[in-house]
């Protein structure tokens, strides 16, 4: 039986690991390569790196991080942030990432999904979605709107429709981040997660709001997510990945427990 995945997310700025709350006030908290290796050894099922560097100089540093990670950890990892073209995708895949996540780049130019899937295979292309709760309306019937620029800009797109469009264009997976829940540690937005997992047949990663292992178990059992993204609950040493997995496996959720 396919195990549910636990995926630590590492935000990287200018080659350093950083963690912000609701995309504001980022503080450096360590070396991303060392941290990735620690999570690999602790049993992470996959790792996500998110480049929050704006400058092109920072981009080079980031690709160097990706290359160093690829030579030290032997589980899949994906890379997102600032991916706006097939050339950007190729650069991170060549540096050693398995998958590449497109977010605002796909909102601006949805064809990047189909072009990426054609060039590298659908399994390489993750559609990253940042989503905020809004009043239900004709334009946003689900009450969940796609946002970009860290939640500062509304797109006028319904999250459920965008997920279906992404799947149709060839995305192999969706990483679904609730901006409302992100950084709160109050749990994933289960309603959002379930709505999206019901609407597509590709795997969905729940993201934003994990504060304890029960939140993650809920994302799997109620949200029907295939994977759960985590950040601060492991970055600050509150839980090890093994502790999280033992708790979740105790509820009958399939977990990879030997590695």
């Amino acid at each position: 039986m396919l195990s549910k995945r636990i995926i630590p997310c590492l935000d990287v700025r200018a080659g350093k690991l950083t963690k912000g709350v609701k995309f504001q006030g980022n503080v450096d908290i360590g070396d991303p390569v060392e941290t990735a290796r620690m999570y690999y050894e602790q049993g992470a099922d996959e790792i996500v790196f998110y480049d929050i560097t704006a400058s092109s100089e920072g981009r080079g540093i980031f690709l160097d991080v990706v290359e160093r990670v690829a030579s030290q950890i032997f589980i899949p990892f994906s890379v997102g942030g600032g991916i706006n073209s097939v050339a950007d995708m190729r650069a991170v895949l060549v540096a050693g990432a398995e998958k590449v996540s497109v977010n605002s780049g796909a909102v601006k130019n949805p064809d990047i999904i189909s072009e990426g899937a054609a060039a590298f295979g659908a399994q390489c292309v993750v559609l990253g979605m940042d989503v905020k709760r809004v009043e239900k309306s004709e334009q946003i019937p689900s009450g969940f709107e796609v946002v970009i620029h860290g939640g500062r800009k509304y797109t006028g797109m319904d999250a459920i429709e965008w997920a279906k469009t992404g799947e149709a264009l060839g995305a192999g997976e969706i990483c679904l981040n609730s901006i409302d829940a992100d950084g709160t540690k109050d749990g994933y937005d289960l309603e959002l997660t379930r709505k999206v997992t019901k609407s597509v047949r590709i795997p969905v990663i729940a993201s934003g709001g994990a504060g304890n292992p029960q939140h993650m178990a809920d994302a799997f059992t109620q949200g029907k997510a295939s994977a759960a993204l985590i950040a601060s609950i492991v970055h600050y040493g509150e839980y090890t990945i093994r502790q999280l997995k033992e708790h979740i496996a105790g509820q009958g959720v399939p977990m990879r427990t030997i590695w």
Partner: protein
Amino acid sequence: MLAILDYKAGNQTSVRRALDHLGIDNRITNDPDLLASADGIIFPGVGAAGQAMDELSSGGLDEVLKSLIWQEKPLLGICVGCQILLDYCEENDTRTLAVIPGECRLFNPAWAEEDGTPIRVPHMGWNRVTLKKECALFNDIQSEAEFYFVHSYHPAPRAEFIIGETMYGENFCSVHGRTGLWAVQFHPEKSGAPGLKLLQNFHAYCLEAKDAQ
């Protein structure tokens, strides 16, 4: 030395990094002489079967590979490299290498998980392999070990070539072949310690096979 087959549809660098980490001498190559002199060949692959076959046959590598397999050169196919050892793949309606009898099929969307929800495709993530017969690749690997899969099509070889199966809604064949000619649907180079051990086991087999000659 292990040769990693170089063609455009491969994930050669991931395999190379894993072998480097294990201290196993390796070359990424499409040179027939170098392939012939290698102790064994790793045949990686990502993407679509049709494209992979086009890349192989346009350079004549399909015939080179087949002839080395006839000469019992040890070979390990990974992912798409595992699929195109079969006769046929539903993906792009592709005639493949026909080294192992059988075909490769799209996951049946009617298959359902234990809780009744239909399976998601691609089959992406960690899953177990249940061995149907002994296989040197799995020496000293715990039976509960999991491997990383990412694929939408699965091998369906003739029954006697099935070595291992994996449960995803229903059982599908995840390891097939015969001694010295193995094909794994998962990615050993991305499966942590058990995957690295499998690559080591393949290398150990290659050295034994060379000594036996």
